[in-house]
């Protein structure tokens, strides 16, 4: 299978690998996929006081296309507002990396990962407004 140069570049030099503190209030964590399917993505965003995503990190278990898709979206979400990040479409990811048809599900998973991270961040913010105390155990893996 011939992969695009962009895809190979993201696979060989993945951007933003790592983890943020999943218990922090300004961090949203998305964990999507399943080991049995051969793809699991963890994507995290850190939202600054100005409402912009100031950092994003990922870890991915999956094929080269899955790794490249998640690496790419961490680049794309940085500097965006949460609302803007939410508009990233799997088709944009697939197009940018020139994913072959059998790998389209990798881009779908990457979109799901952003959405899950945003949902986690919003849930935390809402909770914070309700009861500003106890930032405790609500983090963990949001594998829904």
């Amino acid at each position, binding site marked *: 299978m011939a992969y695009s140069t962009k895809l190979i570049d993201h696979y060989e030099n993945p951007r933003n690998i790592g983890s943020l503190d999943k218990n922090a209030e300004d961090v949203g964590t998305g964990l999507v996929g399943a080991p049995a399917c051969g793809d699991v993505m963890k994507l995290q965003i850190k939202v600054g006081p100005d409402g912009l995503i100031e950092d994003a990190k990922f870890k991915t278990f999956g094929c080269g296309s899955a790794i490249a898709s998640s690496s790419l979206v961490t680049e794309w979400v940085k500097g965006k507002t949460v609302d803007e990040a939410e508009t990233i479409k799997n088709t944009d990811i697939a197009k940018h990396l020139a994913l072959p048809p*059998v790998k389209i599900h990798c881009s779908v998973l990457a979109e799901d990962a952003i959405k899950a991270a945003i949902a986690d961040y919003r849930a935390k913010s809402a909770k914070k407004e309700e009861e500003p105390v106890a930032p405790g155990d609500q983090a963990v893996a949001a594998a829904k």
Partner: protein
Amino acid sequence: MNALAQFRRNDQPIYLDYQATTPMDSRVLEAMMPYFTYKFGNAHSRSHAYGWEAEEAVEKARAQVAKLIGADEKEIIYTSGATESNNLAIKGVAEFYKDRRNHIVTTVTEHKCVLDTCRHLEQQGFSVTYLPVQKNGLVDLEQLRAAVTDKTVVVSVMAVNNEIGVIQPLAEIGKICREKGAFFHTDAAQAVGKIPLDVNAMNIDLMSISGHKIYGPKGIGALYVRRKPRVRLVAMINGGGQERGFRSGTLPTPLCVGLGEAADICLKEMDAEAKRLTKLRDRMLKGLQAKLPEIYVNGDLDQRIPGNLNISFAYVEGESLMMGIKGLSVSSGSACTSASLEPSYVLRALGVDEELAHTSLRIGLGRFTTEQEVDTAVDELVRHVTKLREMSPLWEMAQEGIDLKSIEWAAH
């Protein structure tokens, strides 16, 4: 003598996929050359010297093949390869004996060409029993005994599995088949020339052989068909009645010669080669185990051909690993490289967890593999597995002590 060292360009990866195919031994090529050029006669031409010369060559080669498996040369039928041999053996006997027996026994880990042939026969009205295998990949003899009835025409069990390299208990299976009056067919494409085989001691009635798995040419194989007691087959290819009427068509003399020469080399060098490959395989496995925790060998390690390893590198997906180890040519057990995203049916049949099946590589060592290549391969695998684990969320969770099975994953 090292064909690969001789022909491999510096920018080509190290070949570690000997179960897929093997490079031709230069001695084989040398034996074949005259039959491509000035010894071009048709082996079936009876009226002149060109024909006689070719006939002599194919018959010599037939004897070489026969000798490797303890058969008589009259029992060897040339075919285009193991796929054709498997088709001819199973369909051929099923068709011939269908009025008396209409049941076939095989296993779930057979090569696709056996499984697909059996599926085809099911559609023709035959019944087929697909035996499971044990966790180590071997068939349970008591289950096999129970499955064979007085309606069973043939039991088809592969000698060595192409993915995990495990050796089935052929002599025991042959004994059961003989007791029950069923024919025993074995797909020995991965076994011939790698382990000692004897059709009489093992009570094998039909055996499929491939040329390109034993450092011979592609496009040629053979089927052993027992003469005493005689096994009868309905031919698949009709024509001039060559090959005892089992397989019509002009013999490809150079390919036959190549198969014979390859068999002859195997016969002479099998013992030494097995010892050398066992050493190399152990070196590779020890090298990997020394630096990588949580790697698992799939399939029995003792009942296994020397040149095969099938390893799950937990928490690292197989295809991404293959993409990383660009200097090595291996095969993925996860089969994600093909259009199908399903993990290998062989690994699943062993009961390997799906998530582990996705992390598997098949590594095949062979005649031209060197110690230096093994060491390079170990280094490259260790480097990339470590790198990919650092970016694996599953590895991170496992390190944090989270039980991955406790998480409700969303299957997609």
